[in-house]
Each structure stands twice: as structure tokens, then as C-alpha cells.
């Protein structure tokens, strides 16, 4: 956290603010989607510099990969340009100024960036850094806290993803009423896909296996380096999106049929949940992995491994089924 890094961050923060203003100003929704991709790219960079590698990886994967694809999927089915302008501008600005005043008023007493004896650094954080090698013995403390110390949060997070999955399936499951307003020609990843783009198909076919391999690496290497179930899931989903783009949505459907995706989306959270229940059956509290094996530390390793797998399966299943719902919506 040298002085140069501080300048580095301030420069990037300024770029972010400019991008944010541009996003709100631009009328073309596609441009807004692309700019929000850039926005999350820069925030990933900043998180990386603020010593939050896991978050940077997640933000990069989600920001550039999934949210861009989601926005494009939605824009393909709805209008691309913003027709209406703004309404109630004065009221919104008034509220905005009030809240900003409150926030700035509060910032003056906040601890400085990187101040070692800020309260946040003193109470719970050092305990985690100190006790992780002893109890869980996993190099990546963030994964340890995420999976074991606050495993209950991550269980909730997995179910949030699961809810989003069944939500999109529920909303876009029903065939559109009457004549679909979306003309079939507007398919997002139509039957043809980028078929007649020869070069991207060749490169794509070459790369997809590596991407999947890398995803598995991120999944099971989460204990040692930034990574984990969620990031791996996103990368797998991104590779399937690439496959669908290149080979066309139908082939992607045959590769991973809808029922399999629904099964994955459902079994992921069950894997996570039943690991917790298994801990209860073996005498520990819910999600207390130390009872899973004779030696508590091994138990923690098994526990973390299994629940990360659960998260990975859930995220993969959910994201791909979401993508298929959006893509199929256009094709019908």
C-alpha cells in the first residue's frame, strides 16, 4: 500500500466516476451495457489493488462475463434505445443531495485508508488471521472465513443464486402469450450462431477445453489462491455461453439439456445443506465440519471442498439455465 498505489487507485476511481456518469447520460442502452462492463472491469482492478484478490476475480468474472451477456440477452428482446427521458428530476436531485450530505458528514470521522489500528482491523479480523492456520490450515483465509467461519452466510448466498435461477425459469418458462412481439429473426443466439464466422469458430473450439480446465483449477484451487465455487461456476457458464455463440443455441441445448441444468441447480444447494446436516448428525453443530473426519482440520478440508463443489454446481446450473431462458425466449 505504497504512496504510488494510492495515486494508482485515485486515478482509477476517477475513471470509474467518469464511466458511471457516462452510463447514466447515454441514451443508447447497448452503450450503457458496455460501459457498465468497463465499470466493473475497473472496479475489479481497484479491488485487486486493495488486497481483495478474491473479490477482484469475482467482480471480473461477473462484471465482464455474466452481466454483459445478461444485458445483451435482455436488450435483444426489448428496446435498444431509451425513449423516455427523466421524470421527477428535482425530487430525485433533492434526495440525492440530502443523502450525499449525510454521507460526507459521516466520512470525516471514518478511519483513514489502510490505518492499521482502525476498529475494523482490531477485533474479529486478527482472530481469523491467527486462528485459520490452527483450526482450518488453509492458505486462503478468505476462503476459510467464507466457507467455514461464516459458512452459514455462504449457504444463504447459494440459495440466493438458486432463487434467482428458479425465478428466471418461472418467469420465462411460460410461452409468450399470443403472437410473440419478438420477431423470430431477432434471435440472440439463433440456430446459425456465428457459424459462418470461420475464424472465431476455430479459435473457440480450440479454447473451450482450456477454459473448462481452468475453471476446474479455480474450483479446486480455491483454498490456495483466489478462487472458489462461485468463480468457477461463472467461468464454466461463460464457456458454455461461448459454445452456444459459436455452435448455435441448439447444440448447446443438446450438450447440456434443460432437465440436467435444473437438476444441477437443485442438487447444488442440497449438497451444501446436507453437508451441514451431516455435521449435525455426527454430533457437531450445523455446518461444523470438524466432525466430518477423525482429525478436525481434515474435517474442515473435506467440508470446504464439498461445499465449494456444491456452490460451483449450483452457479453453473443456474447461470446456464438463465442464459438458455433468455436465448430461447427470442427463438420461439
Amino acid at each position, binding site marked *: 500500500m505504497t504512496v504510488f498505489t494510492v495515486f494508482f487507485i485515485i486515478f482509477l476511481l476517477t475513471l470509474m466516476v467518469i464511466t458511471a456518469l457516462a452510463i447514466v447520460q447515454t441514451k443508447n442502452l447497448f452503450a450503457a451495457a458496455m460501459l457498465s462492463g468497463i465499470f466493473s472491469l475497473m472496479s475489479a482492478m481497484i479491488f485487486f489493488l486493495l488486497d481483495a484478490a478474491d473479490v477482484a476475480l469475482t467482480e471480473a468474472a461477473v462484471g465482464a462475463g455474466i452481466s454483459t451477456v445478461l444485458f445483451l440477452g435482455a436488450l435483444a428482446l426489448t428496446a435498444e434505445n431509451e425513449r423516455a427521458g427523466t421524470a421527477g428530476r428535482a425530487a430525485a436531485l433533492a434526495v440525492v443531495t440530502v443523502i450525499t450530505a449525510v454521507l460526507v*458528514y459521516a466520512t470525516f470521522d471514518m478511519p483513514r485508508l489502510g490505518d492499521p489500528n482502525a*476498529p475494523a482491523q482490531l477485533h474479529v479480523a486478527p482472530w481469523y488471521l491467527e486462528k485459520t492456520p490452527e483450526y482450518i490450515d488453509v492458505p486462503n483465509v478468505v476462503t476459510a472465513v467464507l466457507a467455514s467461519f461464516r459458512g452459514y452466510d455462504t449457504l444463504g448466498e447459494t440459495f440466493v443464486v438458486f432463487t434467482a435461477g*428458479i425465478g428466471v*425459469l418461472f418467469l420465462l418458462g411460460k410461452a409468450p402469450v399470443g403472437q410473440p412481439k419478438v420477431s423470430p429473426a431477432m434471435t440472440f443466439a439463433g440456430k446459425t450462431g456465428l457459424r459462418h464466422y470461420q475464424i472465431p469458430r476455430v479459435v473457440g473450439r480450440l479454447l473451450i477445453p482450456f477454459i473448462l480446465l481452468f475453471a476446474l483449477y479455480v474450483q479446486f484451487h480455491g483454498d490456495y489462491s483466489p478462487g472458489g465455487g462461485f468463480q468457477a461456476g461463472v467461468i464454466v457458464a461463460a464457456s458454455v455461453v461461448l459454445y452456444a455463440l459459436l455452435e448455435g443455441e441448439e447444440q448447446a441445448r443438446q450438450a447440456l439439456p434443460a432437465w440436467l441444468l435444473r437438476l444441477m441447480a437443485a442438487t447444488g444447494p*442440497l449438497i451444501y445443506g446436507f453437508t451441514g446436516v451431516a455435521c*449435525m448428525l455426527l454430533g457437531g*453443530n450445523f455446518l461444523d465440519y470438524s466432525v466430518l473426519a477423525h482429525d478436525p482440520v481434515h474435517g474442515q478440508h473435506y467440508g470446504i471442498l464439498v461445499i465449494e463443489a456444491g456452490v460451483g454446481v449450483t452457479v453453473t446450473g443456474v447461470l446456464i439455465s438463465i442464459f438458455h431462458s433468455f436465448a430461447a425466449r427470442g427463438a420461439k
Partner: protein
Amino acid sequence: MSVEAYHLAVLQVVVPLLSAPFVVLLRPRGLAWAAASAASAMAFAIAVSLTAGVLSGDEYRYAVGGWAAPYGIEIRVDALTSLLLLVVTGASLVALLAGRRSLDVDIDDARQPLFYGAWMLALAGLAGIVVSADAFNIFVFMEVSSLASYILIAAGPNRRALPATFKYLVMGTIGATFYLIGVGLIYMMTGTLNLADMAQRVHEVADQRPVLAAAGFIIVGLALKAAVFPLHAWLPNAYTYAPHAVTVFLAACATKVQIYVLLRFDFLVFQGNLPGHEFQFSHFLMPLALLAILLASGVAMMERNLKRLLAYSSVAQIGYIMLGVSLLSATGLSAGIIHIFNHALAKGALFLAVACLGMHIQGLRLGDLAGAAKRMPWTMAAFVIAGLSLIGIPGTAGFVSKWLLISAALAEGSLGIAVVAVVLIGSLMAVVYVWRVVEAAYFQSPQAGSPEGRHEAPPMLLVVTWAAVLGNVYFGLAPGLPIKLSQAAAASLLQHLP
């Protein structure tokens, strides 16, 4: 005496949570509903046994993952928690049992497993919020329940359900993010996320400004989620266009859980530590509550659509709860808390009656209800009794909370008189908007086209509606349980005040 490793506390959340993926995988017709009802019944049984435990004096504390309090996430069940759990699981069970036929109409078979899965997630989310004693964990489960509620509401038959859900999604997310900012600011100043731990460490903080800002953000965020008066814009449309069974479930408990979080946060963490915060809290919330009662009831009186009328009445009733809470006295707080229970009963029964009406009458405008009493006598009788409970006629649950609220207000001296006046005007307005419906149903002659003869709602729906109505009367005459729980809760929340 707190029983550490008593698994019931965490099972309360885990059972509905893990039942959701199962329900989603159940293909055959009707099985999804059956599994959901079974899981909901189990959750209700757990809630009842937890309440029994709490009544016999012990308070459950459960460290999830085996890690002690400030480091791991802790689950805590005390009097206030068990009251809320009863309301949440009870409402879900009743709505599910009653709603089978009406939901079959709204949702096609292929998507029913998804719908019931979302229902179980909403139940699990709400239960998760209520039992959790960790600030960030509350946020996670708040999101689980909110996302699931968006799905449930978007399942409404009418196309207007979609914009209503979108508005709810946007405002709900802003509320949750405000709450997240508040928790972030507190974490920045105290270094912990556990509520009890936070309560001890807040007054050690040298500079109070961020903590005050955090209090502001949390109160506004939760007020937005709980549809407290000025921030209630999403509630009327969301409840009106959601399927009937969903309205029964959400109207009874969704906003109440957010009020619960507001109470737990403000009374435990902020009021003890920030000097004079309790006055800020009551001076900020009481006028809003009074306005809520007057304006929302006023709008309800003018409203033509039956469900929107009851939705606005919910906003007014939330005003009563906040009024009771902002009186800052033991009786006031217990009045507010018990009204959470009583309003869930009254409003649940009313919306169940609306569900019965919905089965045979197209459109729920007052004009369509003309002569409904001749065709559906039992349903309208249930509606009248539930309406009386909403008004607060003695012998019904609503009266008990009105009684406690007025006696708490009277103890406040001169200010109390104004509060009592508003409460009574509110009840009289309730008389008007309930009686408008009764007169339409009983005395106006049905339009020409409507079919003759008597055909009641499906038996299961009617039986559950009448069970809810009799529950209203029972807790009106023998409110021992809720009163005991609410007084214990009020005592525990007010430990810090002199």
C-alpha cells in the same frame, strides 16, 4: 439458562430451506404443493416447540459451524423471535393449505414446482431473518426472502402484477442496500457483526458521526422494506395483483419481519449507546405513524378495489405498530409487538375471505361484490368477523392491541391524548371502509348477469378461513400467549432505558 446445542433453532431455517430444492424437483401434479405444505407444517411445529421452550424461560443460542459468537454466526431465539416465528410459519401454513385450488387456477402445472419452491424459500428467508443474531446474515436472508417474494408476486394472473413486482424489486433492493451501508458503517466503527457484541462496543467508539449515519441508513432502509408510511409506495400494487394465497402469506408477515429487525437493531444497538437516540427514534417515527394511520385509512375509504383497500389498511395498521413502538414505554412496546400478532391474524383472515370470493366472483371491485352475501353467506360472515377484528371490536384480537395501545398512550399525558384521538379516528375510519364492503355484499342487489343460487368457495379454503376467523376470536378472548410473549419481549428490549 440458554440451551447451546439445541438444534431446533437452526432447523427452523434449515427445514424449509432444504425443502425448496426438493419441491422444485417434484414433477407430478399436486406433489409439489403437498411437499411444501408438509415442510411448512414441520416449520410451524418447530416454531411452536421453540415458543414452548421460550415460555418456560430458556433462551436458545446456537453457534452455527461451531464457532463462538463474535467470530462465527450466532442464532438466538427469545420471546420476540418466537412470536414472529409463530406468525411467519403460521401464515405460510394457513396460506398454503387454503390456497391450493386458487393457485391451481393462476399457475399452470409445469411451473407449479418452481412456484412452491419459491414459496419455501420465502418462508426460509423470513425465518432466517428472525432467528439470526448477525447483522450481515440478516441481510443475506433478507435477500433470499425478497427475491422469493418477487417471484411469488410476479405469478399474479393480471398483467399489472409485473410492473408492481418491478417497483417492489427496485424499492426493496434500495432498502436492503441502505441496510447494508448501515451495517458496513457500524462494522467500520466497531469491528464486529454480531448484534449483541455490537451493542457492547458501540459506546466505546470515540467519534459518533458514522454510527449516527449508520443508524439513519438502517432505519430508512428497513422502513422502506417494511412499507412504513412515506415509503410504502410499492405495497398496494404488490398485494393487489399478487395471487390471493400469496397476498395472505405476505400481508400477514413479510413487512412485520422487517419491523422486527428495526426493533432489534434500534433498541439493542443504538438506543442504549447513542445519547438521546431514543428521543430521535420516537420523534422521527411517531409523526410518520400518526400520518400513516390517518392518510392510509383515508385512502382505503375511497378505494374501489377490495384488495387494494385492504392493502392500504395494512399500511395504516403498520402505522399502529410503529406508533406503539415509538411510545418508548413497556406497555407501548408490548402493544406494538402484540399488534404484529393480532394484525397478522386479522389481515390473514380478511385476505383468506378475499381468496374465497375470488373463486366465484370475477374482479374484486365493490360493484362486483353486490349481493355476494346471498351467494356466499359463509365467506361474507367470515369477512364480517375478520373485519370486526381489524376495527378492534371487543371480543376480537384487534381489540386487545387497541386496548394496550390506548392505555400506553394515555400514560403519556397530554401528548397521549392526541395519540389516542388519532388511534380512535383510525378505528372509526376502519369501520367505514369495512362497512362499505359489508353493505355492498349484503344489501345491494346482484347485477343481472350473475348466476343465482348459493355456491360457496371450495371446502378446504372455507374451513381454513373459518379457522383463522375463530383464531381471531379466540385470541380476542384469551390473549394469554401473545400478551405474555410481547411483555417479555418488551422487557428484554427496554433493558437499557431507565
